[in-house]
């Protein structure tokens, strides 16, 4: 526990005042040294892949294969139901074994899941991968490709990308931002991608610029990744600008990133497009390049397997649907982990089983030992105000937590409950160890239930 808190990581070299940032936020120890120097490795083919039908935010997707069907790698196996939805594709060639109920890593509840038995050949659909010049394609064609490729935000939010890239006509977009902040401690998947395959990111970003019709893109990278900053600056064309960001959590949160890079404030309840900005993660940009240039849908991603609870932390290129068990085995096995987390330590979701698959949004799997995490109970709020200082959204988390304790969601809405982005800064600093984010999630669930009820009535 003691070494969790450190002011500024050692490898930061600039003066704070020179770097762009936002108001509020915290400085957790970034702990990236566990995994950041391990090059991206590939996992051997697994026997079975488990593709959940709901890999994204929005409407569910419907399976379009039946048990027994033969599938090829990159073949679509689900189709989206609705505009805000995304398809999934087979991660390898083989046979659809069955469609079962599986624990969903995000909700912890059972959800439909397509099991694909690998035939070991790993054959692409005929004609793939193709070679085409994406810059010769029209805007609508590109968005169509992105949509059919099932690309979602790969930073963890998993919002379907084609929706973000289709702003309504009245919203004038003038800035495209590539999010390379990777402000979550421990994780280094974006860092490795920027270091090893920067061209894919830049080219993906150029496709997005073409779609949005903007002539400027900014890549924001936190100062604790000097190598990535150097690399990106080397190869970035003039229209893509690399900006150094102060190391501070949550620097990579959409609204905070836009504020730091452009000085614009996304209005409360609004979207980045309201201030003329669109943000995409580095991984998403790379996936967009693969889809538009090579016709390969989103079937694999870079994931950091890290933490002191895994024997050999690694950065892996993983297919969507890979069983987590296989991943752990490849990394030397789990050693007394108290928590298994999908995502980073600040916003990731704790898992209770390893019978779950890798998803499109799994930027990392973090295995924390009992010493690294926080298992103690909470006590009453002592009104110290640290959460207020830390809140990047300018809220009063202490009030929200008290209202959460009593389930007073109506009062909490008046305390700006719905502006909370659940970044966890308040909870990190709380000396009384109050689970403020949990209270906020709880209040939001009450609010959702009540408004659903009101709509139904």
């Amino acid at each position, binding site marked *: 526990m003691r070494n969790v808190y450190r002011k500024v990581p050692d490898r930061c070299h600039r003066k704070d005042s020179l770097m762009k940032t936002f108001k509020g936020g915290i400085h957790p120890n970034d702990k990236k040294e566990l995994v950041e120097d391990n090059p991206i490795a590939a996992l051997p083919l697994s026997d079975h892949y488990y593709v959940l039908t709901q890999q994204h935010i929005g409407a569910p997707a419907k399976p379009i294969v039946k048990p027994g069907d033969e599938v090829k790698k990159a073949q679509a196996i689900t189709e989206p139901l609705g505009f805000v939805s995304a398809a999934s594709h087979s991660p390898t060639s083989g046979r659809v074994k069955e469609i079962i109920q599986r624990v969903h890593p995000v909700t912890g509840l059972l959800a439909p899941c397509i099991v694909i038995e690998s035939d070991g050949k790993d054959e692409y659909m005929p004609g793939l991968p193709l070679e085409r010049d994406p810059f010769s394609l029209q805007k609508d064609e590109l968005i169509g490709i992105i949509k059919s490729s099932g690309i979602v935000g790969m930073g963890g939010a998993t919002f379907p990308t084609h929706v973000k890239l289709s702003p309504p006509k009245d919203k004038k977009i003038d800035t495209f931002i590539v999010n390379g902040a990777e402000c979550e401690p421990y994780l280094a998947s974006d860092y490795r991608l920027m270091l090893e395959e920067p061209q894919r990111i830049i080219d993906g970003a150029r496709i997005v610029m073409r779609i949005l019709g903007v002539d400027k893109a900014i890549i924001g990278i936190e100062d604790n990744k000097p190598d990535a900053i150097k690399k990106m600056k080397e190869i970035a064309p003039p229209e893509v600008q690399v900006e150094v960001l102060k190391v501070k959590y949550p620097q990579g949160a959409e609204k905070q990133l836009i504020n730091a890079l452009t000085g614009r404030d996304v209005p409360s309840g609004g979207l980045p497009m309201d201030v003329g900005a669109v943000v995409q993660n580095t991984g998403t940009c790379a996936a967009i390049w693969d889809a538009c240039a090579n016709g390969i849908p989103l079937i694999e991603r870079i994931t950091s397997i890290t933490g002191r609870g895994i024997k050999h932390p690694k950065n892996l290129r993983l297919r969507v649907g890979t069983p987590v068990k296989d991943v752990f085995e490849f990394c030397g096995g789990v050693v007394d982990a108290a928590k298994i987390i999908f995502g980073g330590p600040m916003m990731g979701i704790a898992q209770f089983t390893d019978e779950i698959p890798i998803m499109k949004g799994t930027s990392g799997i973090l295995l924390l030992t009992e010493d690294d995490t926080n298992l103690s109970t909470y006590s009453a709020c002592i009104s110290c105000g640290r959460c207020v200082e830390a809140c990047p959204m300018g809220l009063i988390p202490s009030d929200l937590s*008290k209202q959460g304790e009593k389930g007073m969601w109506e009062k909490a809405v008046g305390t700006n409950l719905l502006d909370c982005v659940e970044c966890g800064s308040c909870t990190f600093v709380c000396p009384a160890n109050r689970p403020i984010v949990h209270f906020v999630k709880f209040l939001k669930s009450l609010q959702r239930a009540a408004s659903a009820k009101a709509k139904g009535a």
Partner: protein
Amino acid sequence: MYYVLLIVSAALVNNFVLSRFLGICPFMGVSKNIDTAVGMSMAVIFVMTLATFVTWLINGYLLDPLGLQYLQTIAFILVIASLVQLVEMIIQRVSPPLYQALGIFLPLITTNCAVLGVALLNIQLKYSLLDACIFAIGAALGFGLALVIFAGMREDFELNNIPVAFKGTPIALITAGILSLAFMGFSGLVK
């Protein structure tokens, strides 16, 4: 300066609620919510000033000349009761939500010893009409101040984990006690 001292004395030093312990009933009853407390304070300021004005006149021009000082209490209660009725009707008409919120405590201003107390004290202290009215405003301000800060604290109590045994009135009384201890600090400020 004299009037400032008069107000300070009535509002802080001899705060009606916290050092004279008058008007405890509405102080406890209407202090659960700041907005209601503000409304109640306004009503009290209005009633107190008006009551003082009327009772002083009645005392000065009717009771005193006729040598009927012993009727003070009864006459004052009569006047105050009618005044409160009047205020009640006005509020009900002008601001129904406030009327709802004040509930039973509005008619209770009638028997609010603070209002009667002010009227009687004015006679005892031999204040002039202007003095009496200013004193009444000061006293009402003090009442309002105590009520509003108390309401603020009680609103916070709603969110706190007070042991079941002390929830509600017990904790309010304890808090009022501590608050009045704190207000003792003003003693000696004005003679």
